[in-house]
């Protein structure tokens, strides 16, 4: 194992730093990096190069070119820069490229060189031009800080939600600061700047001078400053070649170092790992790289080529024209295992496993040794952890093999950590692949989370890999596969060279009914790309009509939207479309559309009934729906019209409509009503009292009650009131008047068409037994019993019933026999019954 630690460099007593190659870059750069504006995104993100940024000539051949590469140097995009001169480049947290122009405009590009949007950093910046700019990352997103030509700072802490903040003036600042940086503390962005020997901290309210504690004397200028990845630490490089390292709050010094190089370094970045006690900064000059920490000596590397440093969460990436390397502190677990002559349990376990493979008995000895110390669990854990930090799959494998070997000798070792590490490494190795080019370390991956990694793969259009990862990790479909497929589909619809049909079919084939995929979202994207037809085709696959309709409306496919809304069965949705249509189409077309959609039509009619009566009429008119038109006018004659003339006119229109509808009955009834109305009006004029709106029956009754018998009869004749009704009517009215004399006269006027039982009933209702008895005698034989019972003559009723030999009548009478008074009658009936039964009984036997 000796050779394995060959690239380990000790810094002080406790820490090793190692640098290993991630990729050899084959990006074929023609320029030196120093001739380009460079920006590389953290978390193994893409690299943007803007070539010839400073040439001002207009000739097309020398126009700046913006190239975007993956971390492995695979070209992702290349475009000719046609906008204004660029001061600074930077990547946002969403891996969007922010290009800050001299005029303060910030242009945002996607990973594939697609222009997204632009925003301005304000008028002040526009006037004074941009001198320098930094893109920085905060909890909220990505921020932009700008130093203007007037030596003022403007910043926005989140470009997603642009709020420009102009920082206060630094008193007496005449020239540009020698160095500056954006700091994020307590969720607020500050600016730290150095002017000569002084440091100033700008927050949005004030500018305060600050002094780093324990700064060596004799500093006349700060040449470089570096903030750590987490904004916790700060390093300052002075013109004396002295480096101060401390907390970003400037309250505490961690260490210092004097490198005796007075030349300003090209870059200085922090190189520390989370939860490690070691602090180190990496300083790069033209040809020299130095790792400096809390140790008297530094680690020095020679740079063969022009290089660029990218600070990461747990180290520094260094890329040049030919290589891409990673420099970091060796993690504790690896150190324990690989340190020369290490007796750590992990180291022994690794050794044991190797011997085991060689089929050597030494394996047992090593194992025993660990077990005797009771450190096997720890050994396995160490191996698993160390595997995570190794870049070479071979080494990962042998460590995992050792872990797995050790596990065999443990009773209860929870398998999760091992399984998860295997899965994570598999994912990591896949994305680290040269073709993918995302050199994430294990710590970065854990910080980033799998969701974000998937998003980044999607952003790189690496859909198959993303899906494979989802399936491999068995992520729930909605979060995993469906989401990626939806993204893929959204990308697919942008492929202008493929026909609508093919795109729609391809999308449906892939997506099918995958849960959580919203076809309407994809369709909306297609519409956004100007492919309306495709959008409509895609919407066909959307199972939820509610989702289809709004987009169809937006695309002005209102008629289609209408039928979809109707299919959905959601009336509210239908209504939304209807009102949309009403505004969009002219009246005629609108009505025609409704005509073909009965459900929509009935819905609209409902609305009109309450809100737009005239429209309702037009609707019926258009359909030649005379029946409904008639009903409409009838209703109008009650509700809308007050004057008799108006009401009669409305009824006349109604009657005409009914005739057209071939509904003669309704037409006649309406005409009768017109006559009646006119007549009632006349009656009111001549007799006074209230007649209007009474029914015919009530009108006649009112006349009789008022003693206008002649008029009543006239009316009955005019309106051909049937005899039966007239008799009922008169009977009731006269009884109400208690005009018994007239009633008797009336009863004798001719033979009653309703019989005489009603007379008895009505007299009894008025509690006039005397009158009732008069009529009881005239009741026909079938109803005689009832009549007699009504007047309370039970005995006679019994006689009649017995005479009739009617069983039903007999029991009816019997049920009216009460108590002692009718005892005799009851007996009589019982006897009659018995007799009747006797008579009847032999019959069936005989027959």
């Amino acid at each position: 194992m000796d050779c394995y630690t060959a690239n380990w460099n000790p810094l002080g007593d406790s820490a090793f730093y190692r640098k290993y190659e991630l990729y050899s870059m084959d990006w074929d750069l023609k320029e030196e990096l120093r001739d380009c504006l460079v920006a590389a995104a953290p978390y193994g993100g893409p690299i943007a190069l803007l070539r010839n940024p400073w040439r001002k000539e207009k000739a097309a051949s020398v126009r700046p070119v913006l190239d975007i590469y993956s971390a492995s140097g695979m070209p992702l995009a290349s475009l000719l820069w046609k906008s204004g001169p660029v001061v600074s480049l930077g990547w946002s947290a969403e891996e969007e490229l922010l290009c800050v122009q001299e005029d303060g405009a910030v242009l945002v590009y996607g990973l594939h060189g697609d222009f997204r949007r632009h925003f301005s950093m304000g008028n002040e910046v526009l006037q004074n031009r941009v001198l320098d700019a930094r893109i920085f990352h905060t909890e909220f997103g990505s921020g932009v800080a700008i130093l203007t030509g007037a030596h003022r700072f403007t910043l926005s802490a989140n470009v997603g939600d642009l709020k420009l903040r102009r920082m206060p003036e630094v008193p007496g600042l005449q020239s540009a600061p020698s160095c500056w940086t954006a700091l994020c503390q307590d969720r607020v962005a500050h600016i730290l700047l150095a002017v000569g020997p002084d440091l100033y901290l700008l927050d949005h309210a004030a500018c305060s001078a600050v002094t780093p504690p324990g700064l060596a004397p004799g500093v006349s200028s700060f040449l470089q400053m570096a903030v750590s990845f987490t904004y916790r630490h700060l390093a300052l490089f002075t013109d004396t070649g002295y480096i101060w390292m401390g907390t970003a709050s400037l309250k505490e010094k961690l260490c210092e170092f004097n490198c005796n190089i007075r030349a300003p370094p090209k870059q200085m970045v922090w190189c520390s790992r989370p939860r490690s006690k070691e602090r180190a900064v990496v300083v790069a000059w033209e040809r020299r790289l130095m790792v400096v920490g809390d140790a008297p000596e530094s680690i020095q590397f020679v740079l063969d080529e022009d290089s660029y440093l990218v600070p990461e969460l747990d180290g520094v990436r260094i890329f040049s024209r030919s290589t891409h390397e990673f420099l970091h502190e060796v993690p504790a677990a690896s150190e324990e295992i690989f340190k020369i002559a290490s007796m750590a349990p992990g180291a022994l376990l690794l050794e044991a496993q190797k011997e085991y493979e060689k089929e050597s008995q030494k394996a047992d000895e090593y194992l025993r040794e660990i077990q005797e110390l009771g450190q096997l669990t720890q050994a396995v854990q160490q191996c698993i952890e160390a595997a995570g930090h190794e870049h070479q799959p071979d080494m990962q494998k042998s460590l995992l093999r050792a872990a797995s070997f050790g596990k065999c000798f443990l009773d209860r070792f929870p398998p999760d950590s091992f399984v998860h590490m295997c899965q994570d490494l598999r994912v990591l190795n896949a994305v680290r692949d040269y073709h993918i080019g995302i050199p994430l370390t294990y710590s970065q991956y854990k910080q980033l989370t799998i969701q974000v990694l998937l998003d980044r793969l999607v952003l790189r259009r690496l859909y198959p890999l993303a899906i494979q990862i989802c399936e491999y990790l068995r992520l729930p479909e909605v979060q995993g596969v469906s989401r990626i497929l939806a993204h893929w589909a959204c990308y697919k619809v942008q492929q202008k060279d493929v026909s609508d049909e093919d795109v729609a079919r391809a999308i449906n084939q892939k997506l099918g009914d995958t849960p959580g995929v919203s076809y309407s979202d994809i369709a909306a994207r297609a519409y956004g790309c100007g492919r309306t037809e495709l959008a409509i085709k895609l919407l066909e696959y959307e199972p939820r009509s509610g989702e289809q309709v709004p987009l169809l409306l937006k695309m002005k496919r209102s008629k289609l939207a209408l039928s979809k809304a109707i299919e959905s069965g959601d009336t509210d949705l239908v209504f939304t479309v209807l009102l949309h249509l009403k505004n969009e189409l002219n009246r005629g077309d609108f009505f025609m559309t409704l005509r073909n959609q009965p459900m929509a039509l009935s819905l609209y009619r409902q609305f009109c009934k309450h809100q737009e009566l005239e429209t309702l009429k037009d609707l019926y008119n258009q359909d030649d729906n005379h029946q409904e038109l008639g009903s409409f006018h009838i209703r109008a004659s009650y509700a809308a019209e007050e004057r008799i003339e108006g009401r009669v006119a409305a009824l006349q229109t109604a009657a005409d409509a009914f005739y057209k509808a071939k509904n003669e009955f309704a037409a006649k009834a309406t005409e009768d009503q017109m006559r009646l109305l006119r007549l009632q009006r006349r009656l009111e004029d001549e007799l006074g009292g209230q007649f209007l709106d009474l029914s015919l029956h009530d009108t006649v009754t009112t006349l009789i009650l008022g003693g206008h018998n002649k008029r009543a009869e006239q009316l009955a004749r005019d309106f051909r009131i049937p005899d039966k009704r007239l008799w009922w009517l008169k009977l009731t009215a006269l009884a109400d008047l208690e005009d018994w004399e007239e009633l008797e006269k009336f009863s004798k006027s001719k033979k009653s068409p309703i019989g005489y039982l009603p007379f008895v009933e009505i007299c009894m209702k008025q509690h006039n037994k005397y009158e009732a008895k008069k009529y009881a005698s005239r009741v026909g034989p079938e109803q005689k019993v009832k009549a007699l019972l009504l007047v309370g003559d039970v005995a006679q009723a019994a006689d009649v019933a017995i005479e009739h030999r009617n069983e039903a009548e007999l029991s009816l009478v019997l049920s009216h026999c009460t108590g002692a008074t009718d005892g005799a009658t009851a007996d009589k009936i019982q006897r009659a019954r018995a007799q009747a039964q006797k008579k009847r009984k032999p019959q069936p036997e005989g027959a």
Partner: protein
Amino acid sequence: MAFPHRPDAPELPDFSMLKRLARDQLIYLLEQQHEVDKLYKVENKPALSSSEQLCFLVRPRIKNMRYIASLVNADKLAGRTRKYKVIFSPQKFYACEMVLEEEGIYGDVSCDEWAFSLLPLDVDLLSMELPEFFRDYFLEGDQRWINTVAQALHLLSTLYGPFPNCYGIGRCAKMAYELWRNLEEEEDGETKGRRPEIGHIFLLDRDVDFVTALCSQVVYEGLVDDTFRIKCGSVDFGPEVTSSDKSLKVLLNAEDKVFNEIRNEHFSNVFGFLSQKARNLQAQYDRRRGMDIKQMKNFVSQELKGLKQEHRLLSLHIGACESIMKKKTKQDFQELIKTEHALLEGFNIRESTSYIEEHIDRQVSPIESLRLMCLLSITENGLIPKDYRSLKTQYLQSYGPEHLLTFSNLRRAGLLTEQAPGDTLTAVESKVSKLVTDKAAGKITDAFSSLAKRSNFRAISKKLNLIPRVDGEYDLKVPRDMAYVFSGAYVPLSCRIIEQVLERRSWQGLDEVVRLLNCSDFAFTDMTKEDKASSESLRLILVVFLGGCTFSEISALRFLGREKGYRFIFLTTAVTNSARLMEAMSEVKA
């Protein structure tokens, strides 16, 4: 009396959860969100409240919006500014917002929704309290509430697990069912894996069986509804019942021990039962005599309260019975029932027609007359043209010409139609049935066309044996079948269909009936694997009535449940009866 359930009858699910849910939501909305402290009924008159904020809790109807708009605009004219909130229940409709906008007050009010759809009126009865459903859907062809039904079913299945067996009949039932299924699919996973608590669900459109709803009710609960009108599970007993000078609002549900025993009984038994009960009660009171001090103490502290409570209830129901008797046992009522039975059995049609005519001529009651006409029409497949004209003419003369519109409504709903001469009918019928089978036309709601709807009641009645053959007297004390709810004369069609389908677990063998009901395309069964459902849950059946159900139907199915060891749960858009149906169809002068 009050037959007990079989010992193996399943337990009913606990619906009090729904009540709590609704109450908490409402309290939250009113108090927390809108700081409401006093409630008024929305009536068409100016609001007298002087408070700074008005909050309206309304159904999403255009009429209500106009009322609110008139209030707001009146305030504006008076130069008064207050805050207005409108809470829509169960949901907000776009049309309502439109009206607010057109009335120019959209900016002045803020809107909210109270998604309340299920009110548990009793242990086995859930009501959506949407009486307007009937007119909106069956007359106006407005499908807005179907979504609400689907939402309600969805809520039930999330609370009580999925339903393994679904049956339904009727166009609306099918639409509601499909919408509900869509909802379930969208929110997949929630109900999956839950154990079903309710084994069957049966959806039924009211227009499948108008006949039952049009009959006079003679079981106690139905009679109380017909006579006093039960509203939201409670009834106002007037002075004639309470035998005091005050009216009394009484909750009618299973908690009322006396009512619970008589609610499903034929009225002829109720009085006897109550007097027996009264005697028992007296006997229990009488035990006081001869008690020593200690026993008396016990009696007073433990039993007296219960007895007093029972006494109070008993006297109330006796009062109600007397009041009903006074109204119903007159000659008229018996004649009426006789006529109804004749119509159901289909004999003496002429006599019945003249009875109806007399009914109209005597102006007995516009709603009753209308009900009889409809009953005649449906049982006879429409009136013969001569009767159709003359009855309508008589009706208009008696009750006023505006009912011309009522007739047009009834015709559209298929409740009162004219027999068309043979040829044209078959021609039109075949045309319509072709249209209906055509899938595109299946969506035509105007297929409400009365012509398409021959009720075929006579044939159905024969097929399903709805008129029991009775030898001798039908013993109403010990009923044999569901016909007891109509004095043994008629088994409610809706209940019979449910019974038949449950027996077969499908519509198989009922094809002819379904065809006669004009529901060939709207009868469906959907079974899932039953391995998860316990045998207990499989004997719980949720019956959903779209357009309302009557207490008679509830009683009949409760009876069926007792016979077969099922328990039925009822979900209805509203509890209805013949008068409510007729009123929903009537046009009255504004």
